[in-house]
């Protein structure tokens, strides 16, 4: 089923058509948009100050006053959740960008320059032999826990995934006739890489980056929960669940809502990733 993107003048109409035909993509995108807007503009949406302690109001169940209830210090869980979302999303995004930049660079170099590939390919394979949380924990242990090291650690963990895909795609694109022609004409390598190879890879990179974002968010939550991530003073969804752990049974809302926030974010990212992949791969037949 070919998808035709409309001309510039009706680009919005074209996008609307795509979203109408592909409901999972639309749903994921909508959900993601809502979450991002809520979190980025947290000051606008938070009904209370997330850090305001109020012992009188501690451990109130969710209700009209407090959408998600309050925690052990009387802080409104909803407000904390959307502020925490800022941090969680920011760490996920930063790690993804880190992984993307380095991963693309490595992948392009490995794909284009055979001699470097021998080494780079092995390093990628070896890096992927480490389970992500384990590697992240080790890196954080080596560098000391902080938001920055978590970002760097996760970035390093997910770089190989992207590098591998970029490398594989570069192999294919390198053999295409017009790339060969460009080289024959004497076009400098960097320009070939940028104009021809990278352009073609963009869709693949976008899809993979979306998934890495999702993995990174899950990983950050796990790391923080284990106590080797961001400091517990900074609210992230992971710290909220960790703090709420003692009150499971008493105040389930402290763990349930941050958990749901993670689930919905990750799920919407996966929906968008899948949707983009289906959209951009013309080989996929939807029916029959």
């Amino acid at each position: 089923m070919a998808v035709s993107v409309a001309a510039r003048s009706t680009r919005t109409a074209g996008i609307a058509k795509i979203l109408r035909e592909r409901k999972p993509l639309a749903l994921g995108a909508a959900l993601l948009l809502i979450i991002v807007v809520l979190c980025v503009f947290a000051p606008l949406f938070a009904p209370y100050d997330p850090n305001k302690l109020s012992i009188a109001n501690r451990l109130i169940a969710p209700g009209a006053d407090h959408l998600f209830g309050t925690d052990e210090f009387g802080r409104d869980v909803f407000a904390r959740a959307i502020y925490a979302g800022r941090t969680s999303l920011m760490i996920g995004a930063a790690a993804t960008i880190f992984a993307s930049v380095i991963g693309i660079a490595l992948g392009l170099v490995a794909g284009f320059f055979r001699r470097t590939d021998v080494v780079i390919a092995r390093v990628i394979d070896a890096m992927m032999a480490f389970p992500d949380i384990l590697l992240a924990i080790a890196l954080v242990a080596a560098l000391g826990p902080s938001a920055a090291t978590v970002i760097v650690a996760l970035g390093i963990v997910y770089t190989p995934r992207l590098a591998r895909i970029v490398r594989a795609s570069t192999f294919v694109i390198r053999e295409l006739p017009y790339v060969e022609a460009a080289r024959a004409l004497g076009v400098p390598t960097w320009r070939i890489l940028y104009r021809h190879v990278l352009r073609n890879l963009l869709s693949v990179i976008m899809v993979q980056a979306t998934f890495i974002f999702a993995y990174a968010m899950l990983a950050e939550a796990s790391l923080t929960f284990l106590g080797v991530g961001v400091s517990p003073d900074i609210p992230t969804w992971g710290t909220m669940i960790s703090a709420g752990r003692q009150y499971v049974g008493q105040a389930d809302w402290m763990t349930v809502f941050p958990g749901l926030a993670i689930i919905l974010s990750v799920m919407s990212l996966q929906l968008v990733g899948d949707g983009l992949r289906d959209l951009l791969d013309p080989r996929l037949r939807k029916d029959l």
Partner: protein
Amino acid sequence: MASYVLKRFTGMIVVLFVVATIVFVIVRIAPGDPAAVMLGPDATPSDIAALRDRLGLNQPLLVQFGVYLGQILTGDLGDSIFLNMPVLTALGQRAEPTFFLTLFSILIATVIALPIGILSAYHRGSLFDQASTTLAMFAASVPSFWLALILIQVFAVRLGWFPVAGYGGPDTTLLERLHHLVLPAVTLGVVSSALILRFTRASMLDVLDDDYIRTARSKGMAETPVILKHAFKNALIPILTVIGITAALLISGAIVTETVFGLPGVGNLVVSAVMRRDYPVIQGALLVVAALYVLINFAIDMLYLVIDPRVRF
């Protein structure tokens, strides 16, 4: 066939070498002096210097690397700073719960994912397919520790069917230990099943379009044997690869799950080692886990030899 085995084997050795190198680098990029960390804040400079000498920390990096490689090859992973025993022994002691947990989890994941994946592919586009795909996506988005907390609350605290945490004491039977592992295995199994289900479905969809399926039907074969004998066996090859990858994911998940459930496994050991900066343990765990992953994948490559005759010749 011999070239296939040889190629895979040498590939494995090279990757193991790079793994060892990476671990070496990671452990040594930590700021600060490992000897100082080991001895604590009250150590005198001369104590620290003596320990540095003893540990060979003053040697050039390349020499240290050589010593390190030699130690690994002889099975010496160093001694734990805080546990007063060789790292290998510490890992060995903790291996049992992690091993059973991983095994149990893969079992649960496969039992859930394979039938549902096959049926989803066969009834592509149906309500069942859409529902299972959605559920799988949901399961893949759940943080394992969060699911663990919920399962504990519902099944251990409220219903009392399973113990809340722990692995049982030294005199508990194997069955009792497995009972302790049910909730943790379900936690990990559910999350892992999502990936296996996705790949099973995709692989089956590919295979069901192949011509020999039509040939099998034209022989007068009933649908069930067509799917199981012909389609599934061909779909198995990529599915096995995913199971191998899931093994690695499970080890990651085990780290978190063991912490939540208080299981005395390797994962728990690693977390406490990280907290205390017990570098030899961290190093040893990284090496063992990565080596295991590489070995599992090699084993799967060998399994292909058995299943796929095209590889043999």
